């Protein structure tokens, strides 16, 4: 096969950054990025955005050179995406924070509440239950991040870890402070309310786990082909018939359960803000499903069946 030439220009000022000759037509974008990285140590492949057009969409790592609309000399425009951090790292950090923060408030570590309450425990059993649920939720998330999730895009901009952690950690402080406060008021409808809420919470946690497992099993490791998720034998996945992103649906459900369980306004705020953000994500995912697959089931809504 004839070999190709690859030219890499800066997307902003069009200056020539690199000329590679003798590139195999079967080379992928990732190969080209690695070659670029060799001559520019600062820009590792995850940081590079290569496009055919200075204002175009970035090419995917797995795109092959001879399948792109280029001749024997390919010109790519490079944009620096800034320092990158892996999704896994971000997820772990944003989850470990709330886990430990909540426990600090639960055990009433000094300097949070009045000194006479240091290291005391709440007399309300719902507070113990809430700690269990909150901790379980984040431990589950950490384990899923380590063993279940398959991240299609390895990295995100470094700035995001500060944004995300600020959000999760600050809300964790705000919620944990009131739930574990010595003057906490248990739910108005007492045991009934707590038991119902616990049911909702557990149901949604099981649901969320089922969805994550289903999504993982959707494609073999390393494969980047996209597939439509469908309901499986697991009843928790039957919601796929009505919703594109049931993982978000179950997440909102879990936090709704937690809100009812603790009857705490900061938790309600967290649920609402999370719901808004997840709806935006779900809508985006739903739209990309519709774009990618012509035969995508028309009955499905992004996050809430029939409604949203």
């Amino acid at each position: 096969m004839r070999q190709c030439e690859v030219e890499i220009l800066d997307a902003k000022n069009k200056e020539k950054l690199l000329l590679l000759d003798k590139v195999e037509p079967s080379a992928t974008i990732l190969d080209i990025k690695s070659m670029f990285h060799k001559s520019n140590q600062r820009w590792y492949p995850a940081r590079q955005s290569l496009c055919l057009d200075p204002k175009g969409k970035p090419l995917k790592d797995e795109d092959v050179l001879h399948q792109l609309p280029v001749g024997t000399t390919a010109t790519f425009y490079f944009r620096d995406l800034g320092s990158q951090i892996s999704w896994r790292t971000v997820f772990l950090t944003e989850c470990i924070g709330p886990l430990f923060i909540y426990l600090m408030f639960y055990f009433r570590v000094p300097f949070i509440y009045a000194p006479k309450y240091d290291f005391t425990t709440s007399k309300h059993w719902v507070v113990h239950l809430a700690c269990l649920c909150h901790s379980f939720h984040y431990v589950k998330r950490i384990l899923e991040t380590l063993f279940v999730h398959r991240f299609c895009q390895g990295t995100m901009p470094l700035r995001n870890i500060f944004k995300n952690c600020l959000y999760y950690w600050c809300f964790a402080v705000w919620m944990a402070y009131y739930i574990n406060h010595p003057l906490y008021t248990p739910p108005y409808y007492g045991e009934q309310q707590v038991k119902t809420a616990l049911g909702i919470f557990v149901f949604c946690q099981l649901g969320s786990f089922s969805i994550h497992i289903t999504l993982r099993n959707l494609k073999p490791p390393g494969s980047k082909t996209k597939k439509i998720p469908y309901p499986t034998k697991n009843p928790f996945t039957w919601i796929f018939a009505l919703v594109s992103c049931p993982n978000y649906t179950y997440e909102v459900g879990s936090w709704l359960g937690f809100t009812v369980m603790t009857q705490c306004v900061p938790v309600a705020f967290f649920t609402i803000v999370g719901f808004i953000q997840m709806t935006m994500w779900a809508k985006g995912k739903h739209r990309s499903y519709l774009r990618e697959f012509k035969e995508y089931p028309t009955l499905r809504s992004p996050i809430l069946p029939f409604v949203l």
Partner: protein
Amino acid sequence: MASGEEDGAVEEKETNNKKKRTKSAIATAWLTFYNIAMTAGWLVLALAMARYYLQKGTHKGVYRSIARTLKFFQTFAVLEVGHCAIGIVRTSVIVTGVQVCSRIFMVWFITNSIRQVQNQESVILFLVVWTVTEITRYSFYTFKLLNHLPYFIKWARYNLFIVMYPLGVIGELMTIYAALPYVRRSGMYSLRLPNKYNVSFDYYYFLIIVMLSYIPLFPQLYFHMLRQRRRVLHGEVIVEKDE
């Protein structure tokens, strides 16, 4: 959605263009009315304040006399956020939102609710600043929409703020600071534990946080205005050179 060369496609495009032109004509008419009304409103406020001071010789009681008109016209300005949101005004929703919020906050949650600060000099300071700024701003928009912008209005719009903004901030901060002891004593707008919502809110500390938030927010708005000023005046210079 792009229409191809199908039957009726050209007619569809013409109807769409007509719709767009009618929409922008309605938008222009509404904005012109809005800006004229707001200019008039703030002029009335300015005249009322001047008349009160000339008649009574003191600033005490000025606020009470114009309170209703002030609240009406300042609250009406919330519409401007809507204008940005639907796109008939090309300004950032966030910048407008922050400005309007801070005004609404001062009018309704400070001077309206805390009577003891209403006769402070700092209130007169920011009222005068707001009046001058708003009359300039709304008349600027009005003339711009009518395509007949006198140079002195443009000059005022892009130069007066340099002094007015900091003065206004000083007036506002001093007023909030003066309000603090009364807020603390009365415990207004505050919620204490225990309560069935399991949340607490202390208006006193909230006000302190608001005062501190001026530190990052004010420079951003100020430099935004300075950048706009440079763009407008800089653009002018280039045109003159061509001629």
